[in-house]
């Protein structure tokens, strides 16, 4: 970057070209009082405090005046001093004087300015007016808005509008009566606010402030435990409690930004319902027991079963090290490959599908490339709810000129920003994408050069497009042909283009085909292997990528090394000093059938809640009840853990060291902020204890750092990952050795397939397994709420409940009218597999004939309804489409 030099108060300053005077000054450690400036936001120059003099030109606000070469800037002259004083005084006289009882005390920008300038008491008193007492808004569960303390710098307004693109806040009224307000000056809770707290984090005074604000006695950098974005978090603690959390501005992904869950959703950590002692079931009731007794019991029981009778369910919420230990335990101690985790229920088709077409099943590109892309195709992802920080970036890219195509059965919030919205029927993604691709081919908009050089199987694929005429696609998907053409032309002509997808693509009986359709379109347009392109499956859990990477899957060892390849098996046998099975294990969905068949008798489950999360949940409950021995290891007594024989108290992410791998394959540190609660222990430690008590070697770890070293030695893609390197490098796998700097973009030279070429896959349209009929006339699809996470074990423990406290069946107004339903009415939703009671929400977000539910609320367990028919390749159940009917209660 070009540098310029100029002087501030005679001192020579070097700054990047394009920097403002204020930025240059602050970067060089020179303080110029300012209030409305924030480094993340465009300057507006409204507080008028940052006045400087440019010699021979006069006074300027430094926040928006570019530094120019050779100018001489003065920050202290009698004139500046006077202006600054008047400005500061005007602000101060309008501000309460009760600093000592303000939460922002010692951390307030206005205080800092007053202190810097030195305030004349007599002057202040002369100008001081009786305070206007405006009502304080305490409606939000997490923060307070006190307009009396507001200095109208507008940082919150700009943050809401430009950073998170929600625009809840704006100025209201004029002149002296101006205040920051929501639309219609309604309480924040009733506004469109998404409670991300970005404004709260940036408020320079005590106007927007968190409700609970104990000052932490220490802070530690870690990684957010919610979704797969992997935001950097700074947890503050005091004694044995987590008291604060804030975004880590040094984190390359979120750069300090967070969503509501990341910022405020940490009440679960110190929640009284946390498990703190081991529990064993005696006569149907749990009794507290000692670790010794519990572990002895488990070691003894486990020793009595062979591998075929054992299954482990690992956890995408746990660290890489813990997943590694879990799969090592399953394979090396129990002698079976039957280990799986919830990735089976979310992104199994991504792993299976992308492995076929690209040779590697992960997000091909990186989050920060979004800002440079020219088109974004978001299909089957409710990004604002499920991956909020990525949604911020998508919206900002759109504002910078990128095109946005949203394909979703629901008119999700992201549609507000979309150039094209394709509201297709659930389960018709292959038809939609193939239809779009046919237009791209017919219109000659495909990337011939890329296809010739880097792809194979194009001819076969091309002929499979023949069936997808616009007539056919329009009929199947319900999307007007003009929109299909528009989407095709837009995506094919605005390059580079990134495609994002999530559960809307994968959770189908043809989920793998859906994924292949996304890889086809990326290959067809040459949108792969280059910056700001790619096929980007957004991973749902904080460490679902890592749990897959570390082999918590029935067919692969860590690093996707196949269990049925003898050389690989030998490698692990040697390293682990044991004999291993070469037979792939059963998948998540197959496990419960096997239990019911009486084959599997023992379940060791770490941090999962299948009773709520698995499709056709009653089937799961039936199976679990039939187990001979069930060990559940968790932080709470979940709906599933209640069925266990032994419950082991695990430590939360805040109480242990480790690593998470985010959706873009970035390995990030998790750091211990407080000691484990009660007698709880980190999962890795518990599993190692069991193994040791079973007399096995290879589990003598005293710290996760040792586990990571073992991982690196056996997992080529993690070969260069170590805690030491993670301290000062951002590493995305593949990172094969300790000089490698990671791989932000996959497939840039060649694909990871056998031939090194990207493989086009011919596809046919397959309808969803269960379609509506006379008895079950509606389609039920599943969705997520921004305010809760999966089975809500962590999110229903505090203020988030106030933002969303119950299941709401989202139903189209026409359907509601036909059924004679009114808003918030309690109904029964009935499928062939179960009945669930819930209130309804009438909204045209849902298309006619399609209702949607989350699965966050155990009182309305949506998965009692969903269909467990599975994708033949990826074995994922079809949780996105099943037939239901609604009855009044």
């Amino acid at each position, binding site marked *: 970057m070009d540098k310029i030099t100029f002087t501030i108060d005679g001192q020579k300053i070097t700054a990047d070209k394009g920097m403002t005077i204020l930025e240059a000054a602050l970067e060089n450690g020179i303080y110029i009082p300012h209030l409305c400036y924030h480094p993340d936001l465009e300057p507006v120059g409204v507080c008028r405090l940052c006045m400087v003099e440019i010699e021979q030109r006069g006074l300027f606000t430094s926040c928006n005046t570019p530094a120019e070469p050779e100018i001489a800037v003065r920050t202290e002259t009698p004139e500046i001093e006077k*202006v600054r004083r008047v400005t500061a005084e005007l602000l101060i006289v309008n501000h309460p004087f009760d600093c000592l009882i303000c939460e922002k005390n010692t951390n307030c920008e206005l205080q800092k300015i007053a202190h810097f300038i030195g305030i004349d008491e007599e002057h202040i008193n002369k100008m001081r007016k009786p305070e206007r007492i405006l009502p304080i808004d305490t409606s939000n569960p997490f923060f307070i808005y006190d307009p009396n303390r507001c200095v109208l710098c507008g940082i919150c307004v700009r943050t809401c509008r430009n950073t998170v693109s929600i625009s809840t806040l704006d100025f209201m009224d*004029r*002149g002296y009566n101006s205040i920051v307000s929501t639309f219609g000056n309604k309480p924040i809770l009733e506004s469109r606010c998404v409670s991300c707290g970005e404004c709260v984090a940036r408020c320079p005074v005590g106007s927007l402030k968190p409700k609970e604000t104990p000052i932490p006695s220490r802070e530690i950098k870690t990684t957010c435990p919610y979704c797969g974005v992997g935001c950097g978090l700074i947890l503050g603690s005091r004694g044995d409690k987590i008291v604060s959390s804030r975004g880590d501005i040094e984190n390359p992904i979120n750069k300090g930004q967070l969503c509501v869950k990341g910022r405020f959703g940490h009440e679960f950590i110190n929640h009284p319902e946390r498990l703190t002692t081991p529990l064993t079931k005696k006569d149907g009731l749990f009794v507290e027991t000692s670790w010794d007794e519990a572990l002895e019991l488990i070691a003894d029981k486990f020793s009595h079963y062979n591998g075929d009778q054992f299954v482990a369910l690992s956890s995408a919420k746990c660290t890489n090290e813990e997943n590694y230990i879990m799969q090592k335990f399953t394979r090396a101690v129990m002698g079976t490959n039957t280990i799986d985790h919830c990735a089976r229920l979310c992104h199994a088709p991504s792993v299976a599908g992308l492995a076929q077409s690209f040779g590697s099943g992960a997000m091909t590109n990186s989050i920060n490339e979004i800002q440079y892309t020219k088109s974004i195709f978001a299909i089957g992802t409710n990004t604002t709810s499920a991956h909020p920080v990525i949604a911020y970036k998508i919206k900002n890219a759109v504002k910078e000129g990128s095109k946005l195509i949203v394909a979703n059965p629901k008119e999700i919030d992201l549609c507000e920003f979309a150039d094209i919205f394709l509201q297709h029927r659930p389960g018709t993604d292959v038809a939609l994408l193939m239809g779009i691709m046919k237009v791209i081919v017919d219109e000659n908009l495909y990337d011939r050069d890329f296809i010739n050089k880097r792809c194979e199987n194009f001819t076969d694929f091309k002929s499979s497009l023949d069936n997808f005429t616009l007539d056919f696609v329009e009929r199947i998907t319900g999307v007007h042909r003009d929109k299909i053409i528009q989407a095709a032309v837009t995506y094919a002509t605005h390059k580079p283009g990134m495609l994002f997808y999530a559960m809307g693509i994968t959770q189908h009986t043809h989920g793998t085909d859906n994924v292949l359709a996304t890889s086809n379109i990326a290959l067809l347009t040459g949108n792969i292997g280059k910056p700001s392109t790619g096929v980007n499956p957004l991973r749902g859990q904080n460490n679902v990528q890592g749990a897959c990477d570390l082999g918590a899957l029935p067919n692969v060892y860590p690093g996707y090394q196949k269990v049925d390849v003898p050389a690989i098996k030998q490698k692990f046998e040697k390293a682990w000093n044991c004999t291993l099975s070469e037979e792939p294990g059963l998948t998540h969905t197959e496990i419960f059938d096997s239990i019911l068949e009486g084959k599997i008798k023992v379940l060791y489950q770490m941090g999962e809640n299948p009773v709520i999360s698995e499709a056709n949940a009653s089937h799961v409950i039936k199976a679990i009840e039939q187990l001979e021995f069930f060990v559940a290891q968790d932080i709470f007594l979940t709906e599933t853990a209640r069925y266990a024989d032994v419950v082991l108290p695990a430590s939360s992410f805040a109480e242990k060291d480790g690593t998470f791998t985010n959706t873009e394959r970035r390995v990030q540190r998790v750091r211990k902020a407080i000691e484990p609660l009660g007698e709880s222990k980190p999962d890795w430690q518990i599993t190692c204890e069991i193994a040791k008590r079973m007399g096995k070697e290879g589990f003598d770890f005293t710290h996760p750092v040792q586990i990571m070293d073992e991982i690196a030695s056996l997992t080529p893609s993690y070969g260069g990952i170590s805690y030491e390197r993670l301290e000062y490098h951002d590493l995305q796998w593949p990172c094969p050795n300790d000089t490698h700097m990671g791989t932000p973009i996959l497939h840039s030279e060649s694909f990871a397939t056998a031939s090194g070429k990207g493989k086009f896959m011919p596809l046919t349209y397959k309808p969803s397994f269960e379609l509506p009929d006379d008895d079950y006339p509606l389609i039920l699809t599943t969705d997520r709420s921004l305010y809760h996470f999966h089975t809500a074990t962590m999110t229903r423990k505090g203020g988030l409940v106030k933002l969303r406290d119950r299941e709401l069946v989202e139903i189209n107004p026409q359907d509601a009218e036909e059924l004679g339903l009114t808003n918030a009415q309690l109904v029964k939703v009935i499928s062939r597999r179960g009945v669930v009671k819930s209130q309804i929400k009438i909204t045209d977000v849902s298309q006619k004939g399609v209702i949607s539910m989350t699965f966050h609320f155990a009182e309305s367990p949506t998965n009692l309804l969903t269909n467990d028919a599975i994708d033949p390749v990826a074995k994922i159940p079809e949780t996105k489409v099943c037939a239901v009917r609604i009855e009044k209660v």
Partner: protein
Amino acid sequence: MRKAIKEIKVGLGTCGISAGGELIFEEIKNELEKQGANVKVKETGCMGMCYMEVLVEVSINGESYLYCKVTPDKVKKIIDMHIIHNKPIDEWIIKNKGKILKEETFFKKQKKIVLKNCGAIDPGSIDEYIACDGYKAIKKVLESYSKDEVIDIILESGLRGRGGAGFPTGLKWKYISRSKRNKKYIICNADEGDPGAFMDRSILEGDPHSVLEGMMIAAYAIEADEAYIYVRAEYPKAVHRLTTAIRQCQERGYIGNGIFRSDKNFKVTIKEGAGAFVCGEETALIASVEGKRGIPRIRPPFPAQKGIMGKPTNINNVETYANVPWIILNGPDAFASMGTEKSKGTKVFALAGKVVRSGLAEVPMGITINEIVFDIGGGIKDGRKFKAVQMGGPSGGCIPASLGDLKIDYDELVKTGAIMGSGGLIVLDDTTCMVDMAKYFLTFTQNESCGKCTFCRIGTKRMLEMLKKITSGEGQEKDLRLLEDLAYKVKDNSLCGLGQTAPNPVITTLKYFRDEYMAHIKEKRCPAHSCPALMTYRINPENCVGCSLCLKNCPVNAISGNSKEIHTIDREACIKCGLCYDVCKFGSVEKV
């Protein structure tokens, strides 16, 4: 004998309407129908003599007679005498066949460029505009000038922005024309918000096509194809006229694609403002056009660089555009021959306040304030003493009578502390308290401040509070120092023009009428007897005749006295409403 062509025009600008013009219009039509006379009745705009409304022009075979202050009673007589019997009623006529019979000085010192059609043509008729050389300039431009030539003509003419700041129009156009961006916009700022100003309204109501033509020429010069007119929603008549004018242009292919059969496109959208004064500030105006909250932003970037949707945008006000066709047709030299060295052409002023002839006057630059006030304005009402003029509305300042020989010129006016402004000129007499006047304007700007920047939001509020203290007799000398200090800080450091000019009324009154402030503070006296807290009413026993009119009108029964005897006012009970002062026919009630 050939049948005489008879036509009647009624002044239906807002001034005409408020004087009852619409009623007159109907009366005339009814009366003509009754008489069975075949006479065309038309509307026209304001011709400037608002104080003489309703104005009715009768023309017979092209000879026109201008009747003033027409009432329904007069209508019958005019029609009967003049139309039917061809006998003009001279006593009601101001102008007879071009000869000025009355109010000669009102016309004599004016020079009409912008207002040449106002009050003369039917603004609802594009044909009448065309008949007065309308759309000749744009055709000339399209046929024979390059865009650079147009800009050169405007540059040479010396035309400066009539919105107030006086930036050279040609220079602005030149800057934008150089931009290589493929999309540019034109904006006409018709958000006339100054209290007492109605120049733009009258132009839009009286001659909307001239503004559209000026905009077309500007669009050609800077290569813009899309325009917005930002006009106050409180100007329904102007909006109506513009809408009609645009539709007429569209019908004739003057607006739309391929205008005047050229390869140029020109699209015009009217954007009605919701009444925020600050939206007259160009960046706030653009934000409002874009559908955002109308608040100013920091410049640079200037609209010429980044305007609507981030595209280069030329903003001029109504009067500026209305000058353009004349300059094109008459040449830059004709325009530049009028005025002073740096201020060329004419300026339209809205004369209001304590002047005899309130109305609209277009004068050549360089005319003096005294000429405007006395020759055109006819001097001060009720024979009172001329004290000052407030120029440029709330953003402007006052100029005392002692500077009455000052020439109207952008730069000369700035030297006094006032500004040219958009043309609001309020005449003040010796009954006006200057502190109160400053307070009035500051109240206005404080209410209209957008609240964005500290100085304008809080600074003006504090200034206003000090003025209130002073006018209520609670002021101290140190308040004055604080007030003055704050005034200069607000002026120098506010973000936009509104804040930067808001203190001008305070600063100029402090400059020219400091003694009045001091009288309020030190002597607790309002020299103009205007501030209620610092004055009282009394009845002069020498000329009270005891008619009891004041007593009957007093709302609080503070006046006592028997009929035919001298009355007295109970000062304790008096609420200083001034009703007694207004009703007394003998001048016995006095302000002290």
